[in-house]
């Protein structure tokens, strides 16, 4: 019973959402709109679960003396931001927005900026002409890297054209093939979930 009810719910809603896509009848649209609205409501409850789980985990870590400074800063941030929002609002000039623009945004941008450094180290390590295919990859990467900067047009007009060709023909062909495979994989996984063949999401069966 514990697994039968969720499977039945999954089957019914899966079939409804699948069928309504092909219909423009009022009935289908009405059911569809209701489901969309309730989807939003269910999602809102998951935020509570996340906050509760995070607080529980952090407090437990602090009591055990594990990563205490990080956990304390996390909890302070978690509590402070909603307090600032409640007291001062979230509009322009509010303390909440000031914290967002001067603390959160720069921190996020900093971590994002790490990507540039990691791209450099990954390129240094990854692009080695070990085999014929690796050499082709290496030469292609160099052409595309050069073709994407304005200076390349000063060296030769061919670079941007070759870059455009590489991005729009061989690269896109490979990407489309992978996307088709991923699309089919997603479709069959979804079908398995709807039909109840795939049950791992329930309780690891």
């Amino acid at each position, binding site marked *: 019973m514990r697994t039968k009810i969720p499977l039945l719910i999954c089957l019914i809603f899966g079939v409804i959402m699948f069928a309504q896509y092909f219909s423009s009848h*009022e009935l289908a649209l009405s059911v569809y709109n*209701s489901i969309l609205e309730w989807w939003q409501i269910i999602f809102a409850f*998951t935020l509570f679960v996340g906050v509760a789980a995070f607080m529980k985990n952090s407090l437990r870590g602090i009591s055990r003396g594990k990563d205490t400074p990080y956990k304390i800063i996390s909890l302070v941030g978690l509590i402070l931001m909603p307090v600032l929002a409640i007291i001062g609002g979230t509009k322009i000039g509010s303390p909440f927005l000031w914290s967002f623009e001067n603390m959160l945004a720069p921190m996020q941008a900093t971590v994002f900026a790490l990507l540039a450094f990691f791209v450099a180290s990954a390129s240094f390590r990854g692009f080695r002409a070990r085999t014929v295919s690796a050499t082709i990859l290496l030469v292609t990467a160099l052409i595309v890297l050069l073709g994407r900067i304005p200076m390349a047009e000063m060296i030769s007009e061919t670079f941007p054209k070759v870059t455009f060709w590489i991005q729009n023909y061989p690269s896109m062909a490979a990407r489309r093939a992978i996307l088709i495979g991923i699309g089919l994989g997603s479709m*069959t996984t979804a079908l398995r979930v709807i039909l109840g063949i795939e049950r791992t999401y329930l309780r*690891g069966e």
Partner: protein
Amino acid sequence: MRLYRRITVLSICFISIAGTVSASDAVQATSGAWLNPDTLPTLIFSLISLLIVLFSIWWVKSGRKFKIREIPGLKAVDEAVGRATEMGSSILYTPGWGGDIQRPTTIASMNILSSVALKTAEYDTRLIYPTHDPVIMAVAQEVVRESCYKAGHSDRFKADDIFYISSSQFGYAAAVDGIISREKPASIFLLGTFEAESLILAETGNSIGSIQIAGTDSTIQLAFFIVACDYTLIGEELFAASGYLSGNESILSSVKAQDIIKILISLFIVTAMIWAAIDPSSTWWVF
């Protein structure tokens, strides 16, 4: 978490009631076609795909067997778990930031988690699972708990090691990076939907010398994983994982169905290509 499940089921019941009420109101209306003709090609293709999947299931159940080729990334799961056990270290498994539980990629990742958790429970290796979504956290806890139970070591389940970090992309990436740098796991599984944080995580894992198995549905992040990780599951290999690892015939049959559909799509593309070359003005293949 049981309370959460009850809330979810109750909410879904409300949706059903609301939908039924709305439907009964809408029964009076007569506008709109039952079948939208613009969606007909999609419906035909969907029904063909469904028939192929059902045919494959019947094919397997009637006793015929087929093989799935070796997938190096999945074959390396044993090696990765063994390495962590031998080194007395931990395993880090994360589903990425880009998806939530409804995504097929996340469900595919849960399947692999189930197998990995079974092995870690058998070998008493620590499994750390940080995630950005509380629902994924709840599902992962159930998956790992069930795997520990199946392994006969329910006591080895540690709910604290499966935790929610942050819904913010780089908050999540920074936290996982910190965990990798401090815990130094011997093996890292990056399986799920990843976005810009993929290379940050993969490079950090590479810098500490971990063995890394990755798989995602994003073609951009796949390129990063191929450079930075030891094994990468490309495209539908990630979705074939549950059948490959469990050997479940019903699941394997749907993997076979994927191959059949892919062949049909290829034939369609070749036919359309040849037709377009012969008659450039034709458009019958355009949807």
